[in-house]
């Protein structure tokens, strides 16, 4: 059984190769939980619906969580509500992206 923070830490190893930041600091991971049997659940979004890496990013998230000991399965819930925007990202991401 892992906490939300521990799951977020594992997912933070997944980096978006287009912007160079991890999914957690981008604010793309909305929620994560895990039951006693080792079944994990991740609620996430993407910066745009038309992202060509849709499947790949979800697969990376799944693999990152499955690397944790005793995790048996991962369910990814890709949602579009609330819609992601830059205010959801960490402060250092906002600052880095806003530099011209």
């Amino acid at each position, binding site marked *: 059984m892992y906490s939300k923070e521990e799951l977020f830490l594992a997912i933070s190893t997944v980096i978006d190769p287009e*912007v160079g930041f991890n999914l957690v600091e981008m604010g793309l991971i909305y929620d994560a939980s895990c039951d006693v049997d080792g079944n994990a659940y991740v609620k996430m979004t993407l*910066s*745009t619906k*038309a992202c*060509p890496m849709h499947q790949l990013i979800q697969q*990376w998230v799944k693999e990152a969580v499955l690397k944790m000991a005793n995790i048996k399965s991962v369910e990814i*819930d890709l949602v579009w509500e609330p819609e992601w925007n830059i205010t959801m990202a960490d402060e250092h991401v906002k600052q880095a992206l*806003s530099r011209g």
Partner: protein
Amino acid sequence: MFPISQDFAPPFKLISPFFILGSLFYLLSAIYIFFISAENLFVLDTKIVGFVHLFLLGFIMMTIFGAMAQLVPVVLEVGHFGVELFYAIWPLLGIGTIMMVFGFVGYPMLLPFGGVVVLIAMMIFVMEIFLTIKKIKKFNLVMKSILISNTFLFFGVILGLVMALGYSGLITVDINMLLRGHLFLVIIGYIVITIMGLSLVLLPMFGLSHGFSHKPLERAVLMVGTAVILVVASSFYPLPILEYSGYVLAILGLCIYFYFINTIYKTRARKEIDIYAKSLMFSYFSLIASLILALLYFLFGAQELLLSSGWMMFFGFFAFVVTGHVYKIIPFLVWFERFSPLVGKQRVPMLADMVPKKSSSAQLLFGAIGVVIIAVAILLQDEKLIKAGASFLLISTLAFVKSVFFMINYK
């Protein structure tokens, strides 16, 4: 859960020939300019018509078709009807284009053959897109734009073949009458509306823009689409009101499109001015210059203004929109194929690392200078300026070819 296409990335070997050939045709277009002299600067001069086909079919269409192979499943959210059909498109389009160019510059009998080969390539493309669109249940603005643009391409190519048959003397048709319909269907109807539709996906995706209204783009697509219909109708029913309302509507539609682009630009979170952003900035500067020159042409009627407007639209707007996106699309495809399986196992490059800084900057700088010099050369009908501009463009296109090969072979 959002439905996701199972065919996001077609095999890279299927798409790479489009980009390689497209870049080589871009280079050939720049070389071709050295053979154009000031006395050729008339809209219907065969050397100019040959150049337009070399550039638009060989470079712009070839690259757009390659990009669409990857983008269609992404924007339509369904897999291709038959992605393997793209293996047939690039050889046919390449061969047909070369035959047509030779047909225009001195061997008119090649024109119908080249025209038929291009027609087959385009029909395969259009039919594949139509059959892919058929799988969609709910249409959004991007999908509508792709449907509209491909319908215009379908009719534009048929009109083009009729003209090619007429030009080579096989049938009797009034080529001048059909010309503006063909031009509007293919250039404004297909290329411009495709660029407009994809803007809604690509610009916010790369700029991380949110919270802008889609309404201006909807209006712009509607106006430009109506403009195409009016101008085509004027090819068959020569009423000046039809023709001129079409021109005015097209210019207004493009102005609204520019306003829409500006709103996306203002709402972007990612302010980085990379080669992509710079290329798009120059392309939109060219679009504005082209629209101003077109307006001046309507006021003063000088053909140099029309040619210069067309030049800025083609080598300024189209070329830089396309090259800018190539710097995003090729690294993604190469990364997806070569590096995505290594994620989590070893250090992989970021997409931006795969863009060659020096050659891409050289392409942009020399290209922008060359485009402006030739626009001035056309206005002044100055022989030396044409060659000077062509020299800049030659360096630019060589740098682009180098960039394309660098990105494709990135290891």
